[in-house]
Every structure is written in structure tokens, then in C-alpha cells.
């Protein structure tokens, strides 16, 4: 293919030229290198003032709400603590059995025993009581908004973007305003988890109600249903499966937020247990407590999703009164029996302290042993990644290459060699594929040489804006310019670049490896069967827990954060990769095989191009997951926006934390819109829809 010089290519070459010029002159023009401090718009001060004013005016209302909400939480907590653990365990197992069957019931029993024997019962019940209050609230609120959005297009136009923002603003940033409005206490966790968990309920309610086939609605109308009957007896039951899926997602979101909220401290719940032990470097303890969270998440997930699938298998009419109320009867009888039992045997009431057993000590010793004996290996893995990938991306080959790190000094020859090689690769790519790939290679070469944090901000602004323009059009370009401009003028640009650097490496690695595994899984049922449960578990796992093993081995720092982000964000890449390849139009594949494609031609020239839009959605999700984890990773000492949010939170500086939170949301939204737009564009070109 000859090199085609078209307008698009010229634009990009222009951008690259401008970038290089900017880099060349940034030594002389100081505002090019760093946005001048004197020009920073004091948004954070304004926000603090605004917030202060708001609190002065309305603070009392929020405090009242807080005290009001404290009661039900206290109530549930009291009940859960007052009941002997054996009774609670029985009831949990019963619910598991009803929702999913024997296997889940046994698993629940096992988990409960684990919690009791290791002595995490009280902490777990504290977390559970928050979830128990926040989930019904979230379901109610989400349902109401969902129904409203379903009936009113105008409402939907307001609701949907609001949900977008609520779900992309990092979880930490929620805590700040809530903390300021409601004051310290359990309510913060409740409100935060409510805010975080009702959006999926809204979405699923709307999707479910929309998805009711029109003929079913019409048949309801023709049966003479009044509007209320039509809603409750026709639309709702038909949409129930999707709506229950919303309940499932709301529950999971609620639990993960309850855990995250424990960082504000003082809650004595299981999240706090994990966090405080991580901070004290008691890894055995933290991983044992983390397992409790994982158990809780898995069981809640199975119960709610079990109920959702069950709703599709409607129960036959129960004949007898006993059969109809059998679960209530069993529950009552079991409760009474176990209460009596607990009275007789004190260990059933409260597990005695001296019978508690914790392998934490042994684990810690084992870990120390591993760390001491394999220090060289661990260190060299860390160094390798750090010197050859992370450092160059962060500060550029230009600074990263030194005798200390790479073993030689970067001389002009090397730089020239690098430049020639990269240009050659770009030309080759342009011939082999197309100009876009070549441009990508060139930009990557520049990033890698000078380092993301060393590139002048005007150049980056230009690159992102032009990219947004190319994939989507003027609206997104203007949005991108304004959004990134906001980061510049509020002075958080350097932190944003630090976040971006970590996140980009993680996302690229996750996406490449994840997609590769996804492709493998699409061709191999055994791999698929192995990968799926791992993915499911990773997705239900609260973010905290994923962090633990990496902190144990690699201590705190960028590398640990990187691994944690990768571990969490490669799940969607696998999922979408496999899904995209497995759901290709059958006819196309057959036709391609018939014209004599070899297996690898089929994969590279037919399947992957066709599956690319779906894979791009996978990339989109990978980025979103990466950003979510990035914020949590701030806990283990990364720099960047996540860290700033965290600082704002611990200092109670609303403005600073909020700006950083908004900054992350801006990056997330821009990345989201760009990948979505690209996927849509490809879909339109291929004439398919995902």
C-alpha cells in the first residue's frame, strides 16, 4: 500500500511538529513547562467558601437527617449483635438455600464459621447493618427514579447524565461533601453507599421497563387494565428479572462503598479492620479480614442474582397453607430452636475468646520468610518494571536512561538511533496498516522519549483535543479542551499527569494481555471455563481486598498500585475480548473459510477487525475499572489525583479534594466518550451493532 498523504495525516503531522516545537522551547518559556502558579484560578477556595456558606445555611437539616438515619442503623446493629451468632448463621443459610440451593447454603455456613472462629463477627455485623439499611433505601430511591425516567423523557434526559457523573466521580470524592454535611458517624457510610448504589438500580429499572415487549403491554391494555394495573400487573412482573439484576448490582455497589467509607474511621467495621492492619503492615491479619469481605461479597452476589434468575422460574401454585408459608415456618422454628440452644450452650451465643483461632501469626512468619528469601527476585522484578517501563513513561528515556538504571549513558547517537528507528517503524506501519497506526507509533515514541510528565501542557492539550475531534467531532473536542483546561487552570495538571501515567501503563498492559486471554478463551472452551469464575470473583471482590497481596509482596509504591490496577482492570478486557469473538455473524466466518482463509488469516483479517468495536467497549471498561482502582491505590502511596483526594479527605479540605475528584471524573468521562465514539464509528462502518 503506497503512503497516502491525506488531510488527516497532514493534521497529525502538524500536531507532532507543534509538539516538538513546544518541547524545544519549553526550556526558555517557563509557562510552557509548568502553568504559572499566579494564574491558578482559586476554584478550591471558592468551593470551600461556597460549601461553608451552604453548611451555615442548611447544615442543621443535614445533621437532623444524620441523627434520624442513625437510629435504624443502630437498631439493626443492635438486633444483629443481640442475636446469637448461631441464629444469624441459620437465617443466612436459609436465605442462601432459598435463593440458590444447598451449595450456597453450605458455603454460607462455612463462611459464617470462618468469621466466628477467627473473631470477626462483630465487625462483620457492623458492616452488614449498614448494607442492610442502605440497600433497601437504594432500591426504593432507584426504583422511583427509574419509573420516573421511564415515563418521562424529559426526566430521563436529566437523570441519565447525572448517573454518569455519580458513577464516574471516584468513590472517595463522595465521602468529602457527605462528611462535611453530615458530620462524622455511621451515616456517612450509609449516605455514600446510597449515592453510589442507586444508579445501577435506576438504569436497570429503566432498561427493564423499556424492554417489555409492546405486544405484552398491548395485550394488557386490551384486557382492560387501568394504568395502575398495567404498571403493577403487566409491566413490573415482565420486567422483574432485569429489575432484580439492578437489585444485585445495587447490593454489590453498596457493600463496596460501605467498605470504602470505613477509611474515615471510627466505625469498627470489617473495612476498617483491613485498612488499619494494612497500615500497620500486619498482612496476615489484613488478608484474613479481607477474605471476610470477599465472602460477604460473594454470598450477597449469589443470593441476589439467584433471586433474579428464580423470578423467571415462577413457582407453581402452592396448594397447602404449609407449603405456601413453609420458609417462614422453618425460619421461625429454627430461630426458636437455636435461641434455646444458645441459652444452653454459651459458645453458640458468643464464641469464646480463647477458642478463637487465627493463623495470622503463622502467615506473617511465612510471608517474612518469603520476603526475606526471595528478596532478590522480588526486587529485580520491581526494578525491571520500574526502570524499563514506568520510569521512561513518567519522565522519559531522556532522563530515565542512566548508567545507574540502564547501564549506559544516553548519548546523542542513541537518541538519533531511537528517532530513526521509530520513524522507520511508523513508515512501515503506514504501509502495512494505515496512517492512524503510524501516527500512534510516532506519538508513543515522543511520549516515551520525553516522558508524560515532561511534555508541555499546551502540546498535550492540543493532542487530546485533536484526537477527540478525529474520533467524534467538534462537540467532544470542545468538551475535551474545556475539561483538560479546567485541570490546567485549577493547577492540578501535574497530579493529573501522574495519575494518567500510572493508569495508561496499567490499561495498556491489561488491555493487551486481557484481550489476548479473551481471544484464547474464545477459541478454547476449557480456558473459558477456567477464566470465567476467576473473572466473576475479581469483579465481586471489593477493591481493597485486591490491594492486599500486592502490598504484602512489593510494599507500597507505584509498582504495587500498578499491579493492583492491572489485576482489577484486565477482567473487562478478557470478557469483551471473548464476547466479541464468540458473537461474530456466523455467515461471515463461513464465507471467509470457504474462500480459503487459513486459521491465522481468519483471526487477524476477519475476526479481530469485526470484533474490534466490542473490544473497544472492553477497553472503555478497562479504563473505567483502572480509574476506579487508581483512587483506591492512592491508599498505598501513589502520587496523583487519587492522593490529592485522599489528602483533601484527611485534612477536611473540601475544595482541594473535590477539584481532584472532579479532575478524575473529567479524565474518566473524556476517555469514556472517546472510546465509545470510536467503537460506534467502527460499528457504523462495519454495519453491525453490538
Amino acid at each position, binding site marked *: 500500500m503506497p503512503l497516502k498523504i491525506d488531510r488527516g495525516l497532514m493534521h497529525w503531522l502538524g500536531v507532532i511538529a507543534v509538539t516538538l516545537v513546544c518541547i524545544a522551547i519549553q526550556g526558555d518559556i517557563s509557562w510552557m513547562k509548568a502553568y504559572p502558579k499566579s494564574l491558578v484560578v482559586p476554584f478550591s477556595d471558592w468551593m470551600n467558601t461556597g460549601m461553608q456558606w451552604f453548611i451555615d445555611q442548611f447544615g442543621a437539616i443535614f445533621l437532623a437527617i444524620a441523627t434520624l438515619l442513625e437510629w435504624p442503623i443502630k437498631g439493626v446493629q443492635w438486633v444483629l449483635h443481640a442475636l446469637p451468632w448461631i441464629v444469624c448463621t441459620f437465617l443466612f443459610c436459609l436465605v442462601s438455600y432459598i435463593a440458590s440451593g444447598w451449595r450456597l447454603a453450605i458455603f454460607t455456613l462455612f463462611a459464617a464459621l470462618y468469621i466466628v472462629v477467627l473473631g470477626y463477627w462483630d465487625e462483620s455485623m457492623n458492616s452488614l447493618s449498614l448494607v442492610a439499611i442502605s440497600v433497601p433505601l437504594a432500591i426504593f430511591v432507584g426504583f422511583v427514579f427509574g419509573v420516573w425516567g421511564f415515563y418521562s423523557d424529559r426526566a430521563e434526559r436529566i437523570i441519565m447524565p447525572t448517573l454518569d457523573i455519580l458513577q464516574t466521580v471516584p468513590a472517595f470524592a463522595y465521602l468529602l461533601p457527605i462528611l462535611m454535611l453530615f458530620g462524622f458517624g455511621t451515616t456517612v457510610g450509609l449516605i455514600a453507599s446510597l449515592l453510589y448504589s442507586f444508579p445501577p438500580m435506576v438504569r436497570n429499572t429503566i432498561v427493564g421497563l423499556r424492554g417489555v*415487549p409492546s*405486544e*405484552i403491554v*398491548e*395485550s*394488557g*391494555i*386490551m*384486557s*382492560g*387494565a*387501568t394504568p395502575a*394495573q398495567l404498571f403493577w*400487573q*403487566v409491566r413490573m*412482573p*415482565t420486567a*422483574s428479572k432485569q429489575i432484580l439484576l439492578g437489585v444485585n448490582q445495587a447490593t454489590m455497589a453498596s457493600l463496596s462503598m460501605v467498605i470504602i467509607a470505613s477509611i474515615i474511621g471510627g466505625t469498627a467495621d470489617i473495612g476498617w479492620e483491613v485498612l488499619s492492619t494494612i497500615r500497620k503492615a500486619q498482612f496476615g491479619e489484613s488478608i484474613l479480614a479481607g477474605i471476610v469481605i470477599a465472602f460477604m461479597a460473594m454470598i450477597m452476589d449469589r443470593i441476589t442474582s439467584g433471586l433474579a434468575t428464580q*423470578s*423467571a422460574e*415462577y413457582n*407453581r*401454585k402452592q396448594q397447602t397453607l404449609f407449603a405456601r408459608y413453609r420458609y417462614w415456618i422453618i425460619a421461625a422454628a429454627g430461630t426458636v430452636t437455636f435461641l434455646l440452644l444458645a441459652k444452653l450452650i454459651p459458645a453458640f451465643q458468643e464464641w469464646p475468646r480463647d477458642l478463637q483461632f487465627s493463623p495470622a501469626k503463622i502467615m506473617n512468619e511465612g510471608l517474612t520468610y518469603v520476603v526475606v528469601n526471595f528478596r532478590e527476585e522480588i526486587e529485580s522484578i520491581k526494578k525491571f518494571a520500574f526502570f524499563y517501563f514506568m520510569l521512561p513513561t513518567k519522565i522519559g528515556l531522556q532522563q530515565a536512561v542512566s548508567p545507574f538504571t540502564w547501564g549506559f549513558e544516553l548519548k546523542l547517537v542513541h537518541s538519533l538511533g531511537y528517532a530513526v528507528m521509530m520513524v522507520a517503524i511508523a513508515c512501515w506501519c503506514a504501509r502495512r496498516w494505515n496512517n492512524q497506526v503510524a501516527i500512534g507509533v510516532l506519538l508513543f515514541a515522543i511520549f516515551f522519549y520525553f516522558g508524560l510528565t515532561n511534555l508541555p501542557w499546551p502540546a498535550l492539550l492540543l493532542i487530546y483535543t485533536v484526537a477527540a475531534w478525529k474520533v467524534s467531532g467538534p462537540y467532544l473536542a470542545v468538551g475535551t479542551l474545556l475539561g483538560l483546561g479546567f485541570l490546567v487552570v485549577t493547577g492540578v495538571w501535574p497530579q493529573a499527569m501522574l495519575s494518567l501515567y500510572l493508569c495508561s501503563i496499567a490499561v495498556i498492559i491489561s488491555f493487551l494481555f486481557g484481550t489476548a486471554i479473551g481471544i484464547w478463551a474464545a477459541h478454547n472452551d476449557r480456558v473459558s471455563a477456567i477464566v470465567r469464575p476467576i473473572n466473576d470473583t475479581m469483579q465481586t471482590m471489593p477493591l481493597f481486598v485486591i490491594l492486599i497481596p500486592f502490598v504484602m509482596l512489593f510494599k507500597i509504591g507505584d509498582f504495587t498500585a500498578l499491579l493492583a490496577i492491572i489485576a482489577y482492570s484486565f477482567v473487562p478486557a478478557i470478557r469483551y475480548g471473548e464476547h466479541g469473538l464468540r458473537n461474530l455473524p456466523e455467515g461471515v466466518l463461513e464465507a471467509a473459510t470457504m474462500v480459503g482463509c487459513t486459521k491465522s488469516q481468519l483471526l487477524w483479517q476477519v475476526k479481530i477487525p469485526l470484533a474490534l468495536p466490542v473490544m473497544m467497549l472492553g477497553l472503555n471498561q478497562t479504563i473505567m475499572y483502572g480509574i476506579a482502582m487508581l483512587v483506591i491505590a492512592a491508599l498505598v502511596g501513589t502520587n496523583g489525583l487519587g492522593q490529592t483526594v485522599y489528602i483533601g479527605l484527611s485534612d477536611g479540605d473540601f475544595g482541594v479534594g473535590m477539584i481532584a475528584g472532579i479532575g478524575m471524573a473529567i479524565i474518566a468521562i473524556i476517555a469514556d466518550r472517546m472510546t465509545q465514539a470510536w467503537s460506534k464509528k467502527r460499528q457504523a462502518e462495519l454495519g453491525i451493532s453490538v
Partner: protein
Amino acid sequence: MRAHQNPSKNTIKLSCKNIWKVYGDDPDQFFTSGNGAVANAHAHADQITKDNHIVANADVSFDVHVGEIFVIMGLSGSGKSTIVRCLSRLVEPTAGEVMLDGEDLLRKTESELIEIRRHKMGMVFQSFGLLPHLNVIDNIAFPLKLQGVAENERYAQAERVIELVGLQGRENNFPKELSGGQQQRVGIARSLAVEPDVWFLDEPFSALDPLIRKQMQDEFLRIQSVLHKSIVFITHDFHEALRIADRMAIMRDGGIVQIGRPVDLIMRPVDDYVREFTRDVPWESILRAADIVESHQGSVSGMKKISGDTLIESLLPYLAEHESGVAVEDENGAIMGVVTARGVVAALAAGCDVDIADADTAD
């Protein structure tokens, strides 16, 4: 059961006049106060289309008589579903008039409409429209439940219609446990549970495979022979229309092209579009004795006597053996004439002629 036998054939049950349904930003602009009577419907429809609106129904008028099966046919997108939804007010017509039992249906309030649907109308849907969370008997009793009928009573009534459609024994199954044919029986039973006068069926058998479809048509005719509903039946299958229609209308681009008895449409199609539908019709299965009866001098004693309504198809074996043919009687038992083997062959040949002539013009 056929209209021309029915004593009340002249009573109009349901009628629509100049119905228009236009989709788009502002459909009302094309009509003054919902009046659908425009001078030149074709030109008007073209005008509306030019204005970026979709004309789903254009100037549709017809009557449905008491006890009659009125079939609407047309290609996909010709507006069949829309017109039947205008008649039941599932869709609000942009212009025109719908009269049910002499009352203006479009003037009814929401609550009056609910009452009408609860007692006078039933509808069957192409993809059944069953409620997935209710079992067969609850699906069928659903309209009664909405009316607040007590449980025993509504189950008793549901049992009656279950028997009518032959679904005994499946009462406790859920829709997804049933075959397509069985699901549609549930749909039919549900629409009959309230004992409606007017029965709308929108391609009820299109989703079924041919054998089941034939069986369901027989079943449908049997039910109708018991119940005598006034029916609007939609199909895109001409053979189906032939089997069940008393009268039928053919639609194109939202408008009606021709209305008449199936025989009229075959014998005297108004244009090539209608002729295209009737092209490969098996003549023997639509021609009835009365259509080809020859006058006969002399006595008919000793000849087999049949009604004018009899299909030629069913006479063929007998005619093959009896040279003199059969005598044809009208409703009152008076002799109309005879049908002979030769007469049948001549009529079928004429049918072929139509085909050949048509083929010639097509070239």
C-alpha cells in the same frame, strides 16, 4: 356461519370511515379538526410523505357486520397492524371516525374505553403477548382478574374457554413451557374469556409452522361456528384469507385497494397488485357450487343435493363418478341448478386463463 347465510348480516357492528394515521413531528397539521375525508387521498398521502412524515394508514374505510369474518391482507408494512390498532384505539388515529355499535369510539373517555375493552373487545397478537409470570389459567383469567371477578368464578370461566380451545391439562404450565401453537391457544382463550362481541386477530398464526397453522385455522373456524363473533382478522397469507374470510380487504401503502368476497377479488381484481396476490390460488378450494351452478331443465330427483355453499374441491370425487352431476340448493332449499364435471373443468380452465392473460401482460 357465513355472512350471506347470516340473518343479521346487514347489521353493522364496527365501521371505520376515512381513517388516517400519520407518524411524525406534527401529524395534525395535515387535517382540519381530525376530518379524514379529503378530496384526493393519494395526492394527500404523497404530500404528507414529502413533508417527512410516515403515512401508516391513508383514508381507510370499511364496515364489519355482525358475525362476519373480515380479513385484512397486505404486504409487510402496508398498515394492517396499524388499522386494527386504530379500531381498538391502541393507536390514536390522526383523522377519521370509528363507530362501534353506532357509537363514536374516538369520543370515548379513557375509563369508558377500559369498560369497552373489558366487555366488548378481544385481541389476539402475532407473538402471543402472554404474561411470562402467569401460568396458563392465570393468563386466561387475567382480564377477569383486572375486573375484580372473584377467584372461583374467574377460574370457572377460564376452564370453559380452556375447553373451547382444547388446552385441558395444561392449566398449570407457564407460557415458556408451551409450544407456539399452544401459546396461541392461550392467547385466543384469554381474548375470549370476557366474551367479547368484537374480536381482533393480528396475524395470529403467522408465527406457527404450516401444519400447526392449518390445524389452528380449523380450530378457529370451529370456535367461530359456535360463538359467532364479529371478527377483524389480519394475515399476509392469501390461502389463510381464502379459508376463513367472509369478506376481505387488500391494503397497500396504508390504503385499501379492494374490498369484497374472496371470489370477487379473484374473479375481478381491480389491478395487478391484487392479481399478484391471487395468482396461484387453488381455484377448486375457493369456488363454491353457487358460483358455477348451471341452469337445469327437468327433474333433479335422484341426484345428490348439496348446498350452494359447498366447495368444489369437496365435490370432485363424487363428480368423477356421476356424469349427471349434483343438484344445488339455496338457503331456502329451492333448487338453483346443477354442477357437472364438465362445468367444473370449464371454470377451472377459466381460472387458468386469467393466469395466462396475466402472464402475457407482464411480458
